[in-house]
């Protein structure tokens, strides 16, 4: 047993190098001043003050959260029925449908978004709408697959039992299928909301550049302005907000479980 535990070490080292170290660097940058080498660190809260001193930055953050949230809701509304019907299909057809859902993901996201740019170019719709199209298109497979997996894992005899006890189709869905598929919906939300809130190339390519989200803000301060400290501060603020929203989601999930058990 002990020797098995030792096999964990490479992973721990991997996590330390690939996840922990960059996170610590972001935190370090966020709390220090620009242009100083590591030897002469000057700690400051200036970057955070700058973020909240002007309504523009919180506004951009708020808009990103709003858009990510709407994207997630659309993905659930469109993705749930899709997953439901795929799960109901027979053997071969099921795997073909799943294949069709995953097929676009074989091509790089950036390339697909460029394609959408060409398709939507001459449509007289707002840039906001175009961004939504791009977001939902890119992230909906994650939602569908998560829900689909939890639906197929479901014990089918529960449905027969519900029917046996006199539940109609709607009741069976609302009181058996839906609660049992919630874990899939919750992980779907995580997988859609997280990349949606920090996405920067979808709004950049489809929103015509004047549609700034927090991801674009971060990219802008890192790449074009070269102000890594302020960029890190924005990243950190966003990370904290995402952590809070994930905590809330998990909590809702937990309470839901409690309810169904009762």
């Amino acid at each position: 047993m002990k020797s098995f535990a030792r096999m964990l070490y490479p992973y721990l080292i991997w996590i330390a190098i690939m996840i922990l170290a960059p996170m610590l660097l972001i935190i370090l940058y966020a709390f220090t001043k620009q242009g100083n080498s590591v030897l002469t660190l000057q700690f400051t809260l200036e970057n955070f003050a700058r973020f909240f001193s002007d309504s523009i930055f919180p506004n951009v953050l708020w808009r990103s959260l709003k858009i990510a949230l709407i994207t997630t809701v659309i993905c659930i509304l469109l993705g749930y029925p899709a997953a439901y019907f795929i799960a109901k299909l027979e053997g071969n057809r099921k795997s073909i449908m799943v294949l069709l859902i995953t097929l676009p993901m074989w091509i790089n996201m950036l390339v697909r978004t460029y394609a959408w740019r060409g398709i939507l170019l001459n449509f007289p719709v707002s840039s906001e709408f175009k961004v939504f199209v791009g977001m939902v298109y890119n992230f909906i497979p994650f939602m569908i697959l998560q829900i689909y997996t939890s639906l197929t894992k479901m014990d089918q005899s529960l449905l027969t039992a519900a029917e046996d006890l006199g539940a109609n189709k709607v009741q069976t869905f609302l009181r058996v299928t839906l609660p049992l598929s919630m874990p899939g919906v919750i992980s779907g939300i995580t997988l859609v909301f997280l990349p949606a809130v920090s996405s920067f190339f979808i709004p950049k390519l489809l929103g015509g550049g004047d549609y700034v989200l927090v991801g674009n803000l971060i990219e802008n301060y890192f790449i074009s302005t070269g102000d890594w400290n302020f960029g890190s501060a924005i990243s950190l603020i966003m990370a904290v907000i995402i952590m809070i929203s994930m905590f809330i989601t998990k909590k809702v999930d937990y309470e839901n479980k409690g309810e169904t058990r009762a």
Partner: protein
Amino acid sequence: MKNWIKLGLCGLMVVSLSGCGGSGKSDVDPQEVYGCSTLNVYNWGEYVGENVLSNFEKQYNVKINYSMFASNEEMYTKLLGGSQYDVLVPSDYMIERMIDENMLQPLDKSMIPNLANLADGVKGLSYDPDNTYSAPYFWGMVGIVYNKNNVDPADVESQGFDVLRNEKYKGHVFVYDSERDSFMMAFKALGYSMNTENEDEIQEAYQWLLDMDKKVDPSYVTDEVIDGMVTGEKDIAVVYSGDAAYILSENEDMAYWLPEEGTNLWSDAMVIPANAKCPKLANEFINYILTDDASYDNSSTVGYASSNKNVLEEMSAPGGEYDGNPAYLPRVGYAKDEVFKHNEVLKKILADLWIKVKNS
């Protein structure tokens, strides 16, 4: 097994643009002459001729590690992070900053006789008046490209950058998504220096940009502007002259105009960082880039104006590759054109204002 390894290595070397097989290699041992045999070059993306690097490798029997950056700031931060390079190709204001911060070493001019090939207009620009630290690579302007069929040339020529506030062209305009280039247009349109620190002038330029955002609702783009104008997606765009030259050569409906109120004259130049491991070979490389052959290959592939006066002449002469292309040759000696100066405080202010313009 050994053979497989050799083959693999060979493949790697091909990828890193080093010839394999040894044909045409010189017999010189670079280790002996230069003290090293690998040159680390850090340049802009899509900024080098097809055979420039491999020819140098063959000629000097060395290997080039070629990496690319997308912005001066990206390059600068990478250097601060401790990365070591032998040759960099930053822009004017960034070179000024690096000189100020003692990050560069002077060129060894005895090793670079080809500095004599430099075109007059790009020699001794304000960021490095005696070319002590830098040897220009490409240079150019920022100009307006417009579709002759949909835009009245008289509008562009009489209004200059102010055509970007002409409501007639609402929804048909590309503007470069960068605080520096956008504020440059605004300052120039208002008749101010683009290096101004005067707060009233900055505010006025900010209002100018807000007005532009409202009146023509531009698309803010970076490199997408090139494809966008080649395909005729929009009618007016503000672009770098090298990209303009390419757009004009691909789409004959497009015309080019340099605003009379002045614009940005820029130059990207080769420099050697203070911590370069192989400075001798770096000087040799800079000298090589300034030869007519290498400069021609660069300029012909990339489309930007060469810093080499012979190439510049050949390209724009009758029968040359850019004969009759008005965007290729930079405008020289025009007093209202300016070179960017490095100003960290100003940059921060403009960056925040630019975000506001885009979000208005």
